[in-house]
């Protein structure tokens, strides 16, 4: 890695971060508002009637899932919309004609998604402190699972952005893939409550491992072994990045 590579990556990250904070009403606030409503309705009002889930109060059980839900959707949509926007306006060409290497371009965009996912995730986590005392049992695991989740969904967002031909395509995956997988990934319930067949089906959903690992970091509650979750997610992240890198090198959707 040369100094020029680092400067190139910094330029994309600075540009992306600046955009995220410049339009914070569109990028940060909506998720925080939505999760605030979840905390009020499911955590405060309904949660108080539910009792303990997985050995903790329902609202404590809910916090990691809601933080992850925000991080996932924001990391994904940041990269998908930003990259597709650059393609649509053709401003991506100013990067493609430069000497920036494919891996450096990818690193820059993924970092932008990670920044937004983490910022929104932490913002939602801070909001949760108004509803329940928050204590992080395993800070390293808490941070690791949040980070690896943001990396994975930034990489998937990049993939979506590369294949998208029109703005509608950017919204398809969040609506028809991400939202169902997230809701069925154990945000609101422990998958140990499911019948055996559906529990097995749930284990094919990578979001289960993200939320479970993150929940363990937060409150030491988990329905899957943490090491298994960490290994699976690291492999998924590496796989997603390698596919993206291959596509950028080939210039898929970028070069004619």
């Amino acid at each position: 890695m040369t100094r020029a590579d680092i400067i190139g990556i910094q330029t994309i990250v600075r540009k992306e971060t600046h955009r995220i904070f410049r339009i914070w009403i569109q990028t940060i606030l909506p998720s925080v508002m939505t999760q605030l409503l979840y905390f009020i309705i499911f955590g405060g009002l309904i949660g108080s009637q539910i009792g303990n889930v997985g050995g903790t109060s329902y609202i404590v059980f809910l916090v990691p899932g809601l933080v992850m839900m925000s991080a996932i959707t924001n990391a994904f949509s940041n990269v998908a919309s930003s990259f597709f926007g650059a393609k649509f306006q053709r401003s991506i060409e100013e990067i493609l004609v430069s000497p920036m290497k494919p891996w450096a371009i990818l690193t820059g965009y993924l970092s932008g998604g990670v920044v937004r996912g983490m910022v929104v995730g932490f913002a939602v986590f801070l909001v949760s402190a108004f509803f329940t005392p928050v204590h992080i049992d395993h800070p390293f695991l808490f941070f690791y699972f949040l980070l690896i989740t943001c990396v994975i969904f930034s990489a998937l967002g990049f993939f979506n952005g590369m294949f998208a031909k029109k703005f509608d395509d950017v919204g398809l995956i969040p609506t028809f893939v991400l939202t169902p997988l997230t809701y069925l990934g154990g945000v609101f319930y422990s998958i140990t409550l499911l019948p055996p067949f559906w529990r097995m089906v749930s284990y094919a959903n990578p979001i289960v491992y993200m939320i479970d690992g993150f929940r363990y970091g937060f409150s030491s509650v988990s329905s899957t072994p943490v090491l298994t979750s960490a290994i699976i997610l690291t492999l998924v992240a590496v796989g997603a990045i390698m596919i993206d890198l291959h596509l950028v090198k080939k210039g898929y959707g970028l070069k004619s």
Partner: protein
Amino acid sequence: MALALSINNLEKTYATGTKALKGVSFDVAEGELFALLGANGAGKTTLIGILTGLVKKTDGSATVFGIDLDKEPEKVRSMIGVVPQEFNFSIFEKVLDIVVDAAGYYGIPRSEAVPRAEQILKDLGLFEKRNAVSRTLSGGMKRRLLIARALVHQPKLLLLDEPSAGVDVELRREMWEFVQKLNAAGTTIILTTHYLEEAERLCKNVVLIKEGIVAEHGDIKELMTKTGAHTLEDFYLHVNKRV
């Protein structure tokens, strides 16, 4: 004389089956202001796209200042500045940010990029607009912004793809003066334009591409004499009518 650009049998066939380039070869000497002419669809923009990495060539080779495009594409791109035909900057960003970020992509640190970008914007009469969002600029200003962005990394070879399209007479004249100054300072420039009288005035050598092949290549005056043409426009029409 050393060559700035050497193109050898360059071919491009698009996925649609369109053959945009059918074996184009020509050289451009270092320090030249060179005209790349041809009708719409002749293959000029495809050629520029191949050199800048936006288009994948089907066959052939190219070197820029002796560096092979296939072997060291990043090094080649670091030496090229390109002013595209269409506006391709973000419409949401400020003028100064667009130029400074472009410098960043070429590995120029921000501390160096900001004063450099400000100077170029002053030279191009855009400094007062440095904090304006790019979409609010007039057409001529947007054109100059493209030039500023292409120059911020001080390229040795500048590719101007119809830089004066849609620009009024006064501004066009100022633009050409700026281009001539750049060339006098040592930048090799390849210019595509449909204003042939300006190409005739500015450039010594020309390559005329017709339907993806080099129809004519050489010294403008000599080519005009050879065909009995009084102007480059006459010569151009003569070649384009030739079967």
